[in-house]
Each structure stands twice: as structure tokens, then as C-alpha cells.
């Protein structure tokens, strides 16, 4: 078996309970337990998180820069998806 640094993992941290997991960086690890431990040792040295996701990099499917038009522009004109599109009588107050 040839020497290598092991597969790359992407690490996501949750800062506080209830908050979303945010990508904080990558690292190398040879197995799942090691990925989790390395993430803890590398990315939470200053109390940056309370929960970790470790995902093998090659399991991530990413959109391409060319997708930017067809993927994201069509949603720009769907103003009816936003609450400000609708008029609510003043008498009703907050909704």
C-alpha cells in the first residue's frame, strides 16, 4: 500500500445549539473516528463549536460556476415567495 496522507474530509461546525452547521475547513483522516477527533483537535481549540459533522470531500456534490444562470437566476423574479409581496390590512397588525 503506498504511503499517503489519507482522504480529505470537509468539516462543519455548529457553534451553539439550534444554529446551523457551517463549513469551517478541511483535514485529512484515515477513518471516520479519526476524522471526528482530528476535527475536534484542529477546529475547536478555542471553543468554536459544540457539534461536528465530518463528510468525505468526495461525497460532496457541488454546482458548477456555469450553473449560476440556470440554477439561481430563475428564483430572482419570484417575488411572490417573499412576505413583503402581500398587503395585509393595517387592522390585522402583525402577521
Amino acid at each position, binding site marked *: 500500500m503506498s504511503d499517503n*496522507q489519507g482522504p480529505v474530509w470537509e468539516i462543519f461546525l455548529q457553534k451553539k445549539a439550534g444554529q446551523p452547521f457551517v463549513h469551517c475547513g478541511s*483535514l*485529512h483522516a484515515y477513518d471516520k*473516528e*479519526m476524522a471526528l*477527533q*482530528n476535527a475536534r*483537535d*484542529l477546529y475547536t*481549540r478555542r471553543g468554536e463549536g459544540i457539534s461536528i459533522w465530518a463528510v468525505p470531500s468526495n461525497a460532496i456534490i457541488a454546482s458548477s460556476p456555469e450553473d449560476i444562470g440556470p440554477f439561481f437566476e430563475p428564483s430572482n423574479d419570484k417575488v411572490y415567495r417573499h412576505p413583503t409581496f402581500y398587503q395585509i390590512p393595517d387592522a390585522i397588525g402583525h402577521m
Partner: protein
Amino acid sequence: MTVNDALFQYTLRLGDTNLILGQRLSEWTGHGPFLEEDLALTNITLDITGTAKSLLEYAALVEGKSRTADDLAYLRNDRHYFNAQITELPNGDYARTIVRQAIIDCFDFYFYTELAKSKDETLAGIAQKSIKEVTYHLRHTASWVERFGDGTEESHNKAQTALNELWQYTGELFEMNEIDEILIKEGIAVDLNLVKAKWEQYMTDLLQKSTLVKPENVFMQTGSRKGIHTEYLAFILAEMQALPRMYPDAKW
């Protein structure tokens, strides 16, 4: 021996064990087998050195002779150090470092779990903080023991050799003397017999899971409770204490 004398000696024993182990582990920083593991081991080193600092600060307080934790660390000679001998042995290869660390992490886990119930509030407090750290250390080192044991033939042999060579230093961890006797009566110290049974069980399970053979009928080394050490400790101290000894008037 008064209770206070016993408490001082007991706290020194715990502080020294952490200090010398941290000193040895710190030799790895910047030289680990790969970058992620270098950082991981240094985290363990930092925890252990931090615990040493808290314990020596407390020892200094208990002694009440206006010595500081640094005085205790830097101005005592080897015959007045009470760390377990296993901590002062050279790191050897990474298997040896990891096997030693697993042995001690496991001991510490059960030891500090008991010490957290101590009637001495300071020791109990230090122990409570330490349990969290040690729980993680043990998870880390145990997973490496398993990787080495059940990894390649080379890693298996290295781990087994380390185990065979280190086992003779494990008896010391459970030795008790007058100090323990006095303090157990006061509800301060830990009865190491309680720790021993749990430690044995955990190590047996871990080694079995790792396809490693637990050494049996080993003649145990002894001495550290009386300040008798291996030849290595005096060298460790010569290096560690060089600056404060060279510049006795200096503050750092």
C-alpha cells in the same frame, strides 16, 4: 506525618506525574507522524501540563512555605520528585508513546473519577476538570492502540513490544504508602485498589479488541513513591530546569 504533610506529598506526586509526562510528550510537538496527529497529541500535552500546573500550585499552597509552583517544578532535584517512573521513560517510537499514554489515560480516567469525590475541595475541583479532558485522551489513545494492534504486522509488533516493555512499570501506579493511608482516612485520597480493578478490566478489553496480548506475571519495578527513579529523570530535569538554575535571580 501530619495530614497537611501527607496532602502536600500526595499533591506533589500527582503534579509531578503530570509534569514529567507532559515534558516527555512535548518532545513530539513538531515531530509527529502526520500533521493532524501532531496537533492532536499536543492538545493532550497541553491538558496534562495544565493539570500539572494546577496541582503544583495547590501543593505550594498546602506546603505554606511561600514556594511557588515554579519553584517546585524547577528547583527540586530528582530525589524529591515523586512522578511514576513510567512517565519519565523515553518516548520511543509512536507505538510506545501511544501505549504508555493509553495505560496512563485509563488509570487517570478511573483515578480522577474517584478523586472528584474527595473531601478536599481543591483536589476534587481539579479532578472534575481533568475527567473531561482525560475521557477524550483515552478515546484518542485507545483508538490508536486498536489501529496499531489490528493494523499492519509491523504496527502490531511495535505495539506488542511496547506493551511488553512498559508493563513492568504499571505496578507502581497502584502502590499505596503511609501518605495514602492517612489521607484515605480523611476521605481525601483515592483507594487505588478500587482503581486497579477497573483499570485491569478496561485494559483487558482494549487489548483483546486490538488483538494484543496482555503481559502476565511480570516483575514490577518500584521506587518513585520514595523518590527513586530511572536514570532518565535526572536528564529530564537537567534540561527542564536549566534556565532557572543558571539565572537564580531572574524572573521569567
